[in-house]
């Protein structure tokens, strides 16, 4: 018989991981509303597919599920109409900026948002998703070498942007 995850386990898993999954969902979705729907559905599906009553699913599976569902959402015509009425993703802050950080972190967030998607998703999965390059390669259907290369290019790109902003 299937078992629903215990409330404590489910809530602590959400508390520890939901923000990084939401960050990735926001980047993959075309609107905040889509990102929220994708996140909820992906969390549930990931548990159904890879979780156990006392063991959460692997983070890589959740990221892969978010990515696949975001593609499905993007293809959906009825959601496209809704998306046009919604706010753009760029309006929302993706990161928590501490009071003492000054404007540099805001500039860095904008630089991350401005990255080409192929670099941004690898950096997101590596830095905030804490996945290995092998896991990233599995999520994105790439070779590990390509994932590592995109990460390096993305970091170099950010360096250039931040040099221009704060030399």
């Amino acid at each position: 018989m299937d078992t629903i995850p215990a409330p404590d386990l489910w809530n602590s898993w959400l508390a520890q991981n939901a923000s990084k999954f939401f960050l990735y969902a926001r980047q993959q979705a075309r609107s905040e509303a889509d990102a929220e729907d994708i996140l909820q559905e992906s969390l549930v599906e990931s548990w159904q597919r890879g979780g156990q009553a006392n063991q959460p699913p692997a983070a890589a599976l959740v990221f892969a599920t978010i990515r696949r569902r975001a593609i499905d959402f993007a293809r959906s015509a009825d959601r496209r109409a809704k998306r046009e009425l919604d706010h753009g993703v760029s309006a929302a802050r993706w990161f928590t900026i501490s009071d003492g950080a000054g404007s540099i972190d805001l500039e860095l967030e904008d630089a991350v948002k401005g990255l080409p998607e192929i670099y941004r998703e690898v950096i997101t999965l590596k830095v905030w998703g804490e996945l290995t390059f092998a896991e990233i390669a599995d999520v994105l259907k790439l070779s590990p070498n390509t994932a590592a290369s995109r990460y390096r290019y993305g970091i170099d790109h950010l360096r250039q942007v931040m040099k221009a902003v704060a030399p």
Partner: protein
Amino acid sequence: MSDDIEQRLSRLRPAALPPGLMGACRSARSTAAPVKSSLRWWLNGLAAAILISGLIAYSLHRPATPGRPSVAHIPVQQMGRVYTPVESLNHLLEVDEVGIVFPEPDRPCRLVRCVWLDDNTYHERTGASTLRMTQSREQFVPVPLEIY
């Protein structure tokens, strides 16, 4: 400052979920019961079995090709003699990918067409004579695909 870009990135913390979304995610726990893989495979197997049954039913009810009677009818039509099968060899001649079908939503199956050459040998019950029949047979095989 550009050299510590990775450290600066790692210090950025992803924004917390809006309270409403976090509440909705917490409430979704009741629908997150893991589906046992055996159940998944059983469902896949059931879908495949239904598809195969349909294909078999179709092939059984299809009119036989003129001049080429079906194997099942031959022994009783040999002037009272009864032949029973003693050997059957099946040679795979062709394999083609037909396409991908969805017996259920989110449960894709590759449909593969196989052409077999069946070589069947029958002995008359008294052992007085042997009958050998060769004919081609078409088969559609559904192969469940795992998607993530």
